[in-house]
Structures are given as structure tokens and as C-alpha cells.
């Protein structure tokens, strides 16, 4: 379904992705993990064509992705930061996005599930962070698409909405969808993820089942397993560097400390 071949991306002198090869073919939930600035969002955005890789190719359903973006009708994307036109009302925003995609939408159902009826006529600029995130979730999940990409979906959500979100994610998995999720909440990963991709400084250091990750560092707790992975001697990228990229900064010993947020 989604194939990334050797993706490189730099912003100025900062190399964000350095030769990423990934494939998402089977239904299920993949958690894309990594410290802040490891390239998670850039990776997800490049699948959507929002970030254009310097090198490498991305194929969606066997075809290279293009600027026309018709392939995006098969993707639902939740951006990390929910910001909308301030003077638009919630109802108008939802209607507007619906008008751009002539696909059947389940917005009414989701509005009810997240309890957003009372704010439908409020301007988006007046909403609290958590409420905006709920609106963001409605906009993302209202379409029945084979691929769902969620960048930090839990940010600012209250426990009730969090439970609802988990239900929706599990439902999507049962419907046979491919889900890519980034999060810093390890309990969510333990609970939901079928596969973990660990990204550090733009390269993939682990790609496999959560249990395999724990076994590899001999640590039964995923959070600690990740911390071990970062600080211990387990850090070798699983993909060899190609000739075109510069050698990675050496990371043996305790150079990379988990001052990184988890």
C-alpha cells in the first residue's frame, strides 16, 4: 500500500530523514516512535506530499505520489497542531472539508461521540486546545479511508475523549485499515500497537513487534525498553548507510541521553 524507498530530507543544513526505507502493506496499527526532532512528523508528512523528499520515492498503491494529490482521498490525516481559520465556525469548517471531498462522511456520528454539539456554532478561535483537538479528530476520522495517519492524536484530550479515540482506533484496525500513529504516550503504544518503528536522527533503528523490542533490550516495560535503546549499546541502524549520505554522528556510550521527552 505505502512504500518509501530511501527517503532523504534536509531542512537547510539539518538532515531530518537519512535514507528511510519502509513499507506499510498489512492492516494494523504501527506506532512511529522517536524523540522530538527525530523526523516522525516529516516522515508522515512526506507520505501526504506536504513535505517533498530531496531523494527517494514514495509509492501509494503501486503508483508514485504526485502533486495532484488524488491518492489522498484514501488517507485520513490528523496534523500534530490543530489550528484552523479563527473566524470560521465549527459547523462551517466541517461542511467545507466535506465539500472538498465528495466522499460519504460520518461527521454527525463523530460530533455526537465527542460531544461537540454545543460548540458547533462557536468560532474556532474561541475553542480550548482540547476541544480543537476533538474537532481535528472529527475532521480526520469522518471518512472511511483505508489509511489513517495520526500525528500525536492524544494531545490535550480529556480521559473520556481518550477512551473514545482508542475505541475508534481499535475499530479501524478491525475494519482492516492501515494506521500510522506517532505518540509519546508509551502505554498507548503497549495497548494498541502491532508494530513499532523507532526513528532516531532520521534513521530507523528498530522495526518490528513491540515484544521483539522488549526482548532485544531485555526489558519487560516498553517505556524503559526505549530508554535503554537510547542509552545502551543497542543502537545500530537496521539499514546500512548508502554512499550518498554523510556518516552518522557516533552514538556509542552515553552520548545520546534520554533528556528526550517520553
Amino acid at each position, binding site marked *: 500500500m505505502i512504500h518509501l524507498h530511501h527517503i532523504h*530530507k534536509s*531542512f537547510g543544513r539539518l538532515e531530518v530523514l537519512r535514507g528511510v526505507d519502509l513499507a506499510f502493506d498489512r492492516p494494523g496499527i504501527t506506532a512511529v516512535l522517536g524523540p522530538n526532532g527525530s523526523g516522525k512528523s516529516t516522515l508522515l*508528512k512526506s507520505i*501526504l*506530499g*506536504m*513535505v*517533498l523528499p530531496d531523494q527517494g520515492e514514495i509509492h501509494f498503491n503501486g503508483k508514485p505520489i504526485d*502533486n*495532484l*494529490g*488524488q*491518492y*489522498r*482521498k484514501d*488517507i485520513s*490525516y490528523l*496534523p500534530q*497542531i490543530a*489550528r*484552523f*481559520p*479563527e*473566524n*470560521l465556525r465549527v459547523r462551517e469548517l466541517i461542511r*467545507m*472539508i466535506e*465539500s*472538498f*471531498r465528495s466522499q460519504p462522511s460520518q461527521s454527525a456520528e463523530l460530533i455526537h461521540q465527542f460531544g461537540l454539539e454545543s460548540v458547533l456554532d462557536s468560532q474556532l478561535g474561541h475553542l480550548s486546545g482540547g476541544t480543537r483537538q476533538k474537532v481535528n479528530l472529527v*475532521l480526520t476520522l469522518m471518512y472511511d479511508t483505508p489509511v489513517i495517519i495520526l500525528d500525536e492524536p492524544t494531545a490535550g484530550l480529556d480521559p473520556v475523549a481518550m477512551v473514545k479515540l482508542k475505541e475508534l482506533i481499535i475499530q479501524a484496525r478491525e475494519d482492516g485499515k492501515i494506521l500510522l500513529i506517532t505518540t509519546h504516550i508509551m502505554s498507548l503504544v503497549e495497548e494498541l500497537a502491532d508494530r513499532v518503528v523507532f526513528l532516531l536522527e532520521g534513521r530507523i533503528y528498530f522495526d518490528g513487534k513491540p515484544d521483539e523490542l522488549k526482548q532485544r533490550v531485555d526489558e519487560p516495560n516498553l517505556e524503559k525498553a526505549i530508554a535503554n535503546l537510547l542509552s545502551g549499546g543497542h543502537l545500530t541502524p537496521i539499514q546500512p548507510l548508502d554512499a550518498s549520505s554523510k556518516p552518522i554522528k557516533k552514538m556509542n556510550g552515553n552520548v545520546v541521553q534520554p533528556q528526550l521527552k517520553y
Partner: protein
Amino acid sequence: MLRIIRYSFADLIRSRWLYFYTGFYLVLTGALFLISADLSKVIVSLMNAILFIVPLVALLFGVMVQYNTREFTELLLAQPIPRRSIFLGQYLGIATALAISFLLGAGIPFILSGIFLSGEIWNFSILLLSGILLSYIFSALGYLLALINDNRIRGFGLAILVWLLLAVVYDGLFLLGLAWFSDYPLENVAIGVTVFNPIDLARILILLKLDVSALMGYTGAVFNKFLGTSLGMGLALTILVVWAVLPVSMIRYISLRKDF
């Protein structure tokens, strides 16, 4: 793309600033009519105001809208919409809203004054056409500057700099150059240099039509003398259209290559 134009347009016509802008022209044009009943005098006075204000407001709106809709743009980029439609649609929405706002503000007082019954109708049409073209040109430049510069302060700063250069400083530098090299034949150079300033071109276009040689200035006179009225107007208009198209194609070029 039409949908994006419509939304961008609808979003802007809700803005208080746009009503303020229309109201400003209504008041200005109305006031000019109170001072003088002579239509052609009103047209010339209005021209001087338009040449300063339209570019400034269009630049600032172009920059402001592009920055204010950044987040929204990201939302659109995740939808199955071609990139070029998003950016060109937004730009066309702003430019059209500004042009209509100008058209109403400057047009209504003239219609009330009975412009359709007078011989000044064509002069007035050229004035409106220039204002509309300047709206499109400068909102494109503003939008482009904001698209290139992620730093908002720099984007606004550059927009004001562009305005200062083209609306204020350009004339002075130009005159200085003419005085400096007054021993040489400068006509062709003058025409060449004018091409780089859409505000000057609009001025020449209007004054050639009005045939007010006293106000034409050096470049206008050169246009008139060497190209004649119709050829001069044709040339000025053509270059103005090029000025409107060029930044738009730059917007397209950059929008296809930018990361969000």
C-alpha cells in the same frame, strides 16, 4: 479550484478591513466630488490616491492572508486537492475581493454623479482598470513574499520595502539618474526603466488616456512622443498584464516546491 477561490473570497469579505477599505474609497471619491464638479479633475485626483493606496493595501493583504491561512493551507494540503489549486485559488480569492472592493468604493460615487452620461466614461474605465490590475499585481507580490519568507516580520517588512521603492523612492532615483546623465539621450533608457515599475506604468496608462501632458512627467512624455497615445497605452497595458502574470507563475512555481 473554484471552491477554494470561493472560500478564500468569502473569508475575506467577512473581514472588517475590507469594508473599511471600500468605505475609504467611497469617502475619498465622494469628497473629491464635493470639492470639484469637474469629472476629469476628480479622475486625476483619484488617480494620485489610487496609485499610492492600492499597491500598499494589496501588498499588505496578500502578505496577511497568506500568513493567516498557513494552518488552514496545511489542512487543505492533506485533502485530495492539487497543490496549485490551493495556492492559486487563495490568491485569486484575495485579489478578486480587493478588486471588487475597490471597484465598488470608487465606482459608486461616479455612477451617482452620472458618469454614464458624460464623455469621461472611457477615462474613468481606464482608471478602474488600472486600479484592478494594480490590485491583482500587488496582492500577488504580497502573497509571494509571504510564501517565500516564513518569518512574518521579514515578510511584512519586505512588502513595505517593495511599496516604498516602487511608489516613493523610484521616482526620485529616476529623476536623479536623469539629471545625472542629462547630457545623453535617455529616451529609450527611460522607457526601459519604467517597465520595471507597475505603478509608473499605470500612471502613464491613465495619463495617456486623459491626455494631460502637464502631468505626464518625463516617462509619460517619452511614451507619448515616441510611441504615440494608442501604441503607448497598448505597451503600458501589455506590460502591466505581464506584471500580473509573472508573480502568479512564481507563486505556482514555489507552491509546488515548498514543504509544509
